[in-house]
């Protein structure tokens, strides 16, 4: 091993203090000394005298193997990986000193965080002028802020969904409201999806309100809501669109037998006496039925107009029944 006897030891100590990741090589590329952090990374008791190319694989400049080749080709910036299995890469610069020795200063570069974790480095492994601590700080602060933002997003999304649900729900019956029914109807028409539409109006509801009071009326509406939910599938839409007026959209069902069956079952159940506060409320329902297939081009406004007329016909025919109009001409 080559060592200049004229150079006192403090030079090494000084280098180690200012550059804890320096590597000092003799003119043949054998290790004369290394900074404490780099020694910690290489973990070799026999580091002195080891050859540069046995310690490191050169990733850039391409084709360089020895320290001499690295410095000759890209002394201002090169990349290395230790051969001892440490995954964190190294970035460095170096120069041949006037006496022929080679001095390199290495750093973890962008692999800093991985290196800190892999090697268990502490703040004592970095010098005060190194921005490593700032980078670690920044990464951690950033992770904390990102976590906080993700939490905020989740909470806002939850609040948004709850508000949306509330805006589409009739609070008394738990059914959809008019706005929701309009949206579903428009969507079904736009998608050219076949469906049946039942327009339902309670019979004798006014007399319940008049004789038993509004609380009893509200109770009847709640019971109707439960009946509609029970008689329909989840993909169907049942909405309260007015005081005692309901709209039912039966998705993918245009068979008249089926729709009549649903309407009659609903009427039958609503017509059963409803006990309320020790008394009995007796209502019934009239239903107008239309099908998306009744119109060549289904359109919400025209379908509703048709359903309205069917409902009116049902009322006129004596209530407690369902009526289907064949076309606008009926």
């Amino acid at each position, binding site marked *: 091993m080559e060592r200049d006897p004229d150079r006192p030891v403090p030079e090494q100590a000084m280098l180690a203090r200012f550059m804890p990741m320096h590597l000092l090589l003799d003119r043949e590329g054998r290790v004369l000394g290394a900074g404490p952090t780099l020694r910690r990374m290489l973990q070799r008791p026999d580091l002195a005298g080891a050859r540069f190319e046995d310690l490191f694989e050169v990733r850039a400049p391409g084709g360089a193997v020895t320290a001499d080749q690295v410095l000759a080709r890209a002394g201002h910036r090169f990349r290395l990986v230790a051969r001892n299995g440490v995954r964190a890469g190294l970035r460095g610069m170096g120069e041949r000193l006037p006496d022929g020795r080679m001095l390199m200063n290495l750093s973890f570069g962008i692999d800093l*965080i991985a290196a800190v*974790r892999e090697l268990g480095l*502490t703040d004592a492994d970095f010098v005060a002028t190194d921005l490593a601590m700032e980078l*670690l*700080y920044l990464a*951690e*602060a950033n*992770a904390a802020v990102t976590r906080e933002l993700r939490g905020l997003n989740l*909470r806002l999304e939850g609040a948004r969904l709850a508000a949306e649900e509330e805006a589409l729900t009739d609070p008394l019956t738990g059914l959809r409201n008019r706005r929701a029914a309009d949206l579903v109807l428009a969507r079904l028409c736009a998608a050219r999806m076949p469906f049946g539409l039942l327009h339902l109006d309670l019979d004798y509801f006014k007399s319940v309100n008049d004789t038993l009071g509004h609380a009893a009326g509200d109770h009847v509406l709640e019971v109707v809501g439960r009946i509609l939910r029970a008689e329909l599938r989840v993909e169907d839409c049942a909405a309260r669109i007015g005081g005692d007026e309901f709209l039912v959209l039966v998705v993918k069902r245009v068979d008249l037998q089926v729709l009549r069956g649903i309407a009659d079952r609903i009427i039958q159940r609503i017509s059963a006496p409803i006990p309320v506060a020790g008394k009995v409320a007796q209502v019934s329902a009239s239903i107008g039925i239309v099908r998306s297939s009744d119109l060549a081009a289904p359109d919400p406004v025209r379908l509703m107009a048709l359903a309205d007329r069917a409902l009116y016909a049902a009322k006129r025919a004596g209530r407690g029944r369902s009526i289907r109009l064949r076309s606008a001409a009926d």
Partner: protein
Amino acid sequence: MDALMLRFLQGYVRGTFGVPVWQTICRRADLPVETFEPMLRYAPGLADQVAAEAAAVLGRPVETIWEDLGTYLVTSPGHEGVRRLLRFGGIGYADFLHSLEELPGRARLALPDLDLPDLDLPEIRLTEIAPDRFVLDCRAGLRGTIRVLVGMLTAMADDFGTLCLIEAEGEGRIAIRILDRAHAAARPFDLALPEG
């Protein structure tokens, strides 16, 4: 700063005294909400107002509540991030104290968006009177800030294993006296964030 302080106060009161106590405080303060979002904006001074209600409900001086909040931020496992970010300030407690002047700069580095006049980051100035005596001056829009700092400085002294005398001296000034730098073992601090 109000948003951050309100969020911290919410976590501290709910975690220490329970959710119903926090709800009572919010009702008394006439707040439309019971949860605060640290990334949103609230009326300047709202945190002081809510803290005053907390003081009334808990029957303790508002200064004590702010100081306890500062301690809670450093010591509660749920806020390990706060303690870690503070520990990045230095190897020893004196280093850490000096790093406090850099705190607004660090915050701006992490969140460039913070550099808005209405965010009102505290201004911190540390004067070293003697190697073991410091004076910290803090100018902040929130009255509680200085007390939160007292709580945090006290808890961080424990974290570094340093024995200190820390006292608020009037509005906006803290006197710190280091009595024993190696009073106890420092809590361990890994530079790398634990994975997962």
